[in-house]
């Protein structure tokens, strides 16, 4: 059975054969005192947030609250914005990912990302998935690569729909299929963490349900962080929810608790639709 890097490490450390559905959870990413600035303007204020493994953490909050900015810190996507400065520590596997010695390309293979709009490469379905394993040298042979493509597409719940047209252009797929293709592309390089930035906002309810079903399946193996504007979606797919407002982390807790009995007034007002 193919395993993620996380699992391999855990299994060798513990000397055990791990059952795929074993729901062991521990902080996969530990964010400490994160500040983010765009030029002189501070967008994130001193956020500390442990992100547990093998579960879904949802980030919610009104537009401009900093949740996407925060998400982008987790694989250093903010490096691509010149005026953006991130301070604080983001510890993953004992290393601070903000350390200048950290290779952002390698980091992004460990921390995959799925965006609001599906963004497949203008290539075939096969090549979209094979691209990552190829550039990271993960496949020893063509058979290996074929197996990886199939496994990724199966995990993304797309295999049966595309197995007979792997050479077709990826943009011939429907929006929902394209998004699942992007998820398959992200998991092809065996990441430990998957970041999702409003992955369903451009999809219809049926495609959304398929993605949510997929997220539920993926959380058995990965640490998932999802930004969503739909509180119902956060309630449905996540185990932990963090509420952001004006660049601050107002409250974080079990999803059940956040949506039935939030501790903070601002959280209550937001999730009940009272925010002025």
């Amino acid at each position, binding site marked *: 059975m193919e395993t993620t890097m996380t699992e391999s490490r855990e299994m060798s450390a513990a000397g055990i054969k791990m059952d795929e559905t074993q729901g062991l959870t521990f902080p996969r990413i530990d964010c400490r005192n994160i500040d983010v600035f765009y030029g002189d303007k501070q967008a994130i204020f001193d956020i500390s947030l442990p992100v547990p493994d093998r579960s879904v953490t949802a980030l919610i909050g009104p537009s401009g609250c900093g949740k996407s900015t925060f998400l982008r810190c987790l694989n250093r996507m903010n490096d691509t914005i010149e005026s953006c400065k991130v301070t604080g520590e983001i510890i993953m596997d004992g290393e601070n990912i903000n350390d200048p010695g950290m290779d952002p390309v390698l980091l992004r293979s460990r921390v995959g990302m799925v965006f609001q709009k599906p963004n497949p490469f203008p290539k075939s379905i096969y090549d979209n998935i094979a691209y990552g394993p190829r550039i990271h040298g993960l496949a020893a042979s063509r058979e290996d690569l074929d197996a990886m493509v199939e496994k990724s597409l199966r995990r993304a719940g797309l295999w049966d729909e595309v197995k007979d047209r792997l050479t077709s252009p990826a943009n011939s797929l429907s929006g929902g299929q394209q998004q699942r293709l992007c998820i398959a592309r992200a998991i092809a390089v065996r990441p430990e963490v998957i970041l999702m930035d409003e992955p369903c906002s451009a999809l219809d309810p049926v495609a959304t349900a398929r993605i949510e079903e997929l997220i539920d399946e993926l959380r058995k193996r990965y640490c998932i962080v999802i930004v969503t504007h739909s509180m119902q979606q956060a309630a449905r797919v996540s185990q932990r929810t963090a509420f952001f407002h004006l660049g601050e982390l107002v409250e974080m807790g079990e999803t059940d608790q956040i*949506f*039935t*009995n939030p501790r903070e007034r601002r*959280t209550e007002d937001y*999730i*009940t*639709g*009272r925010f*002025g």
Partner: protein
Amino acid sequence: MSDHIVSAFTDELDKLAADILRMGGIVETMILDACAAVNKNDVDVARDVVARDEQVDKIEADVERQIVSLIARRQPMAHDLRAVFSALKVVGELERIGDLSKNIAKRTQRLDENVGASMRKGIYRMASPVSRQLNMVLDAYATGNASEAKAVWEGDEDIDQHYNSLFREMLTYMIEDPRTIGAGAHMLFMAKNLERIGDHCTNIAEFVYFQATGEYLLSTDRPKTPHLDG
């Protein structure tokens, strides 16, 4: 709490609470009137109480319909979710109180001339603290006051003690004069119904407390008086 951005949502929650309070008011007078009918042997009032139960059932059905619609359309969260859940539970408790009051009223019509004024007074005396419990818990529901709800919850012990003493009193009457046994049996059921109404008030108090705080009051933590019968 401030209003929702969608004002119709606030209106719907307000209407739900108003309907429940209206239903509570009807049920409260049913308890008092049923027991006054016992006291005065007033069959007309008893019949009127029986008739009012239909109105209570209609309000219950209407409130349930509103709740189903509200959940489907608004997907309430946090305090709103607790308010809707609590409304669904409270409406069921009030309906049961209505049934129990109706049952007292029905039995009133079967009491014979062997029932003396002092026997009738026993039931009447118990009605007052029971209806007060309901009144207090409805006030707590209206204002979302958790400590008032808890006071009602703790106050059920008094109702249980009242029931136990009434039970002994009725037994004494029946032992003294076996001709009162038929009526006495009816009155024991009436007393039991009042005691059960007290329990329903306690349940309502638990839902009001949950709605206000998000925390559960556990029945196992409540002081209890041992019952004399099953």
